[in-house]
């Protein structure tokens, strides 16, 4: 028992470490990526011992600076809530990772280690719960700042997140129906099957519509362009307008964390999670007959790598999108959510249900 706990703690530590670093790395990627898109160079000056590392240390500088920046609580604001909001934001974004499986079972001796911090049967529900709770961070931030812009941002964020959560949830119902489970590891595992012997049974294949809806709605959850209305820098500046120093940094971090969460979720739900096509625990089985045996640790490693690469690709795509499109208007956003995504998602569920009922055996 103690060992299990230790293993879980180590896992949690690894995930936390990886995710936070990834978020930091993310800022650098975003900076450099935008620079490349815009024919710029991007941050490249901060040296450590003479190494500039393509400007990677700028992120460190940002963090260090924000930690030592004066913390301001506006007059008339609710101190506790004001303090609490960013922590809530980061906390809920972080705990989400607990339920995401980033590899298959690792077998060391007779001990089987699930590469998932918390094996929760209804992991999807948990994730949604956590994502939804993230709203509190935002709305508290908006409310506690006693600033019209912040309130406006908070309201927008809340409405947006709640609205899109519905589409998000309904989109996933299709996935759940297809795989028949809410356990993410199980969902990933069932994506390892092949349709017709060659096409991996990934979510994107069986639930393409749900994928589009999910990505859209999930992006809206992350409050990034084109859905960055709550922050909309040139309109209302954002719900965190009154935050300074690291508290602001935390909101900032949350943004990146949520992007990673969403990328991980998309990977898990629609792109086979840690699955590598044609790789089964005992090795590769290609449809054209080749077979390459793979050791368990290597198989797990492949899985983790696969998960990471897919996740990173999605992060990259989300950012590419962020530097490409303009922002929605609030009512357009809402109508997209309620009039566009929601009915389509429902339709998707119905169609899936019908298909499952009539052709259930086939799939």
């Amino acid at each position: 028992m103690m060992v299990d706990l230790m293993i879980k703690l180590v896992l949690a530590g690894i995930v936390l470490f990886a995710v936070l670093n990834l978020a930091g790395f993310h800022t650098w990627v975003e900076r450099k990526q935008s620079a490349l898109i815009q024919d710029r160079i991007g941050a490249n000056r901060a040296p450590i011992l003479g190494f500039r590392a393509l400007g990677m240390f700028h992120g460190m500088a940002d963090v260090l600076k924000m930690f030592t920046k004066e913390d301001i609580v506006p007059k008339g604001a609710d101190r506790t809530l004001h303090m609490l909001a960013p922590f809530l934001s980061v906390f809920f974004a972080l705990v989400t990772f607990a339920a995401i499986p980033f590899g298959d079972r690792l077998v060391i001796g007779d001990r089987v280690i699930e590469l998932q911090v918390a094996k929760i049967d209804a992991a999807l529900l948990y994730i949604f719960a956590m994502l939804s709770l993230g709203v509190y961070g935002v709305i508290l931030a908006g409310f506690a700042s006693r600033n019209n812009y912040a309130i406006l941002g908070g309201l927008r964020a809340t409405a947006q997140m709640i609205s899109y959560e519905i589409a998000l949830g309904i989109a996933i119902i299709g996935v759940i129906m297809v795989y028949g489970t809410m356990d993410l590891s199980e969902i990933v595992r069932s994506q390892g099957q092949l349709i017709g012997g060659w096409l991996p049974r990934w979510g994107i294949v069986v639930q393409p519509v749900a994928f589009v809806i999910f990505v859209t709605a999930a992006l809206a959850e992350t409050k990034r362009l084109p859905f960055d209305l709550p922050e909309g820098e040139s309109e209302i500046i954002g719900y965190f307008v009154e935050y300074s120093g690291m508290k602001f940094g935390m909101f900032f971090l949350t943004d990146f964390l949520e992007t990673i969460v969403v990328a991980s979720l998309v990977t898990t739900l629609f792109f086979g999670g840690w699955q590598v096509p044609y790789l089964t625990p005992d090795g590769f089985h290609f449809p054209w007959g080749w077979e390459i045996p793979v050791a368990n640790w290597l198989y797990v490693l492949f899985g983790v790598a696969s998960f990471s690469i897919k996740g990173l690709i999605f992060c990259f795509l989300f950012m590419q999108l962020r530097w490409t499109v303009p922002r929605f208007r609030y009512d357009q956003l809402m109508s997209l959510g309620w009039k566009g995504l929601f009915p389509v998602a429902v339709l998707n569920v119905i169609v899936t249900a019908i298909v499952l009922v009539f052709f259930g055996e086939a799939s």
Partner: protein
Amino acid sequence: MAVKVVRRPELTFWEKLYLPQIFCGMKITSRHFFKNLFLHIAHLFGRLQHIPAAATIQYPEELRPLMSRYRSRHRLTRRDDGSPRCVGCMLCETVCPARCITIVPDEHPDPDVEKFPVRFDIDLGMCVYCGYCVEVCPEDAIRMDTGILDLAAYSREAMQLDIHELLDPELRKPVAACDLEFPHQCSVHGGEMKGGWEGTAVTPSS
């Protein structure tokens, strides 16, 4: 009269689904991204250096060529003997819309020169770089061709150039020794030739 009514985009159903145009947009941005990424990597290996990977001019290391007509920090020209060409006619002081030029003329011991500036200060904190002073100078005594750009300062006083710095653009404040024959007032700050001229400067890509 040629009036051209602009064509408003009528979106097709397909385009109304957002995605196609978003992909098109991402195609454009990705093209930039990958092209620049490729070029950066190529530059790393010393290839394709003639194609710039970014529009950026990495300023302190890399200098954007200034156009030859560009009006940069002023300087006073010198005679062969090193004294200022300026005779203190004060046309530049007169024409300066910002009143940033301060000249105090006095009588020169040499009757051929007659008049010379004891003080010639330009307050860069006031100057609007209109170039009128150069245009009106009847002696070719003031020019705005130093190419000096690092004028930022920590105080107002440091933005004030005196006759030493104007005569010798390389000079930096505090001026230790006065190389002029006549005593002038010395204070702080100077400049260094930065920024190359058209044709002489390195191109951004190299």
